[in-house]
């Protein structure tokens, strides 16, 4: 888990670096959410089709995708919008993953629409049987969109409850707007209770808590075939995106630093070991970034590709 957290952090830092060096137009991502996103990926049932888990992800989900086993170079390619970008062929922003083979639905920039779609995959899974579930994630500010409510409504219809894990990663910000100015709810998770959806707010900065809580929630959803609403309190360590500078923010809990302090204290890893790990990843990704830098952009005429799927 620690390894993946480091890997994800280093990946995001590399992406930010690429942006700052002019190797990409825009960065957005998930540094500060690793403690929650890594366990999420580890606990997912990976594979294609309704027997496996679907992920309708937010744009801060790199750690989940790495935990699922994805190679980091894809994210770098997307950052550099090269033709080799495996998620969008150089078309979409960083953090906009998509991998059908693993049921990762394409991340879409419009906030919250994934909450309107997730009931659809969950519905097929309910009918399909087995223990595959759908998972949807998004931010706190986005819950103001009607689609969040739609998700609660559609997943809790009596007799048609859906196996859907509804996640809100609450970093207490929507770009520059503090959550406490916009939310009348005591907790976002309270909104699930009105629908008789099992709901909980957890500390998403602690990977152990996150793992246990996610495990429990997922077991409930898998077995009961009913929705669960989880709010995870997380941090936004580099601000909203490159639009707000992408600089490290001092005053938020850094889940990785906190976890490492604990690991060190309990003698599970030494500072040296952790530094080595980080250095190794840093070098690896720097090398990848150099590789990606020379890869070609998509050709102009490729704009016409994939407008429609065709029968092969």
């Amino acid at each position, binding site marked *: 888990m620690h390894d993946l957290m480091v890997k994800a952090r280093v990946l995001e830092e590399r992406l930010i670096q690429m942006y700052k060096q002019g190797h990409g137009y825009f960065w957005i991502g998930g540094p500060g959410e690793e403690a929650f996103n890594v366990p999420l990926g580890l606990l997912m049932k990976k594979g294609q089709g*309704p027997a496996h888990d679907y992920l309708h992800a937010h744009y801060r989900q790199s750690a989940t995708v790495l935990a699922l086993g994805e190679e980091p170079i894809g994210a770098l390619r997307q950052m550099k919008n090269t033709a080799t970008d495996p998620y969008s062929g150089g078309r979409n922003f960083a953090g906009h993953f*998509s991998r059908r083979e693993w049921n990762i639905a394409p991340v879409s920039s*419009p906030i919250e629409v994934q909450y309107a779609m997730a009931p659809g995959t969950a519905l097929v899974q309910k009918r399909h049987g087995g223990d595959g579930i759908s998972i949807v994630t998004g931010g706190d500010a986005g819950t103001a969109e009607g689609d969040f409510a739609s998700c609660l409504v559609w997943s809790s219809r009596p007799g048609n409850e859906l196996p859907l894990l509804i996640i809100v990663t609450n970093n207490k910000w929507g770009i520059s707007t503090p959550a406490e100015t916009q939310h009348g709810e005591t907790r976002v998770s309270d909104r699930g209770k009105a629908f008789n959806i099992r709901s909980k707010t957890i500390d998403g900065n602690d990977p152990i808590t996150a793992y246990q809580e996610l495990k429990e929630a997922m077991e409930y959803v898998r077995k009961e075939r009913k929705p669960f609403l989880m709010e995870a309190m997380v941090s936004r360590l580099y601000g909203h995106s490159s639009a707000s500078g992408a600089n490290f923010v001092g005053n938020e809990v850094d889940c990785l630093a906190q976890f490492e302090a604990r690991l060190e204290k309990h003698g599970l890893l030494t500072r040296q070991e952790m530094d080595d790990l980080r250095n190794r990843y840093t070098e690896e990704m720097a090398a990848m970034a150099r590789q990606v830098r020379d890869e070609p952009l998509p050709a102009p005429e490729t704009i016409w590709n994939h407008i429609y799927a065709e029968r092969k």
Partner: protein
Amino acid sequence: MANMAQAVRMALHYAEEHLGVTDIFGEDVGAPLGGVFTVTQGLKTAWNSPLDERGIIGTAIGIAMAGGRPVAEIQFADYIYNTIDLLKIAGNTCWASHGDWNLPMVVKTPVGSGIRGSIYHSHSFDATATHIPGWKIVIPSNPLDAYGLMISACQELNPVMYLEPKALLRVKGEERIPGEPEDDRQLSKMIDAPLGDRSQWKAQWPQLEAYAVPIGKGKVVREGSQVTVVSYGRTLPLCKKAADELASQGVDAEVIDLRTLWPYDWELIKASIEKTGRVLYVNEDTEVTNFGEHLVRRTVEELFYKLLAPPRLLAGKFVPGIGLADTLEMASVPQQGDITAAIHALAGEQP
């Protein structure tokens, strides 16, 4: 012969049985009502959704992602306008994911005037729909085409917008649907839900046959040499009738039923205009930034020097709604007289 509502219903039954359709859903789509226009009565996969158009389109996308084949209904096109972002996403998912995901889903919705539907049961959707990339868009003007287009829609790998001209839903066809019984009353008895208690009722489906109207193919419904009239949906039969009547006045009009709005049958239109040198486009959406204007643009772009007169558009007036009163509806969207007059004028137009 079956009317269009029955035809779509039969196509959906066929699609449930043979094409893998898994979910036919929307507001009041399931039992007991089977749709406000009876289109989804008796279908085994039909179900009632919450009153939430965004949820309907979103769920359809999700079902399609997970390998289902949804046919989602928006009860009236008038209520689809809070979902345009989702329709755009459905249309760009394949492209944005560089071909990784495709969404085989159908959205059906009744469109247009003709039932005194007032401001919110009269909207057309062709202009808005054709501005959204990544969709295929069809609109039948008779029951047989309605049947064949729905079957094609349910075989598509991509999102299909299926527009139902509500004024034509109860109009019977002139051609029999393959498998449809000879006697209309018998058909009605078999597949129309009874009045009153329906809890025990089940449809008796006729032995339907595959019949697909290919997406992208228009149809010449009347051949002519002097002027080309291109239309679809509610106004198509009016164009046909106008052309038939004008024949006695020496005007020989060719009438094309576009049937698919995107990707449309330009070859058919072009060949006709090359023959006649004159073209009138007719639809009932409001006339500013109207799909007919696209067709006009394409016409002048490619055929300008072959035209004998300017390409014309007859469409709905650019007013905020279709008023309830008969007088208002008549004045807002093309009626028989307007169409006849427009064809007549164009056929005789001289510089």
